[in-house]
């Protein structure tokens, strides 16, 4: 399983902060899956991190990974 977590305004789009999904091979596939499940994600701005490391291109997701969908940061 893969843990997918959503933050900030993305939780408005998804209605959840964390879900478990069946294994998917890579981040491109996971992103497509999430956009199908939560259509309003498509119009959102976000970055993706796998196991706390930001990914900018398609990246492999190993089983047991934690994948974060994060909107622009607004701390401080």
């Amino acid at each position, binding site marked *: 399983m893969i843990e997918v*977590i959503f*933050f*900030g*305004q993305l939780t408005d789009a998804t209605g959840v902060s964390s879900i478990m999904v069946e294994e998917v091979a890579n981040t491109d596939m996971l992103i497509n899956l999430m956009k199908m499940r939560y259509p309003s994600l498509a119009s959102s701005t976000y970055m993706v*991190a796998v196991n*706390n490391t930001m990914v900018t291109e398609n990246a492999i997701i190993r089983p047991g990974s934690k994948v*974060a969908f*994060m*909107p*622009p*940061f*607004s*701390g*401080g």
Partner: protein
Amino acid sequence: MDTNKIKNIFTEGPVEASFIADSIAKHATKTSIGGHSIFLGQVRADMMDDKQVQAIEYTSHVEMALETMSIIREDIFAKYELTCMHVHHSLGVIKAGEICLFVFTSSKHRKAAIDACSECVERIKAELPVWGKEIFEGEGYQWKINH
């Protein structure tokens, strides 16, 4: 990443002035310090159209934020001659007028402390996975945007 090195920076609720005072007072024994620089972020009661912000609720991807902060800390210690650096960021609901960020750098000479503090604040705002939800008086909210 050596997790032993990872310090917590998050505290539930606002940073209290008395906490800041204790933090300053603790440095009195470090007599090689010549200058301290402190930045405090305070929640503003901004007006948006006719709604006023009464609080910001902060959430974070804590684990990732602490790893990122640990890297920022290493970078800043490598770049500036600092005696020490302390960072505290609030989580949860912080009311307008309360302190939500406390960055504290100390060094022998003022320039390193001042430059390191300001760089640390910029990096915290740009790089830490933290989000602010601006809660309006009455009802409604909007998500904070950093500039």
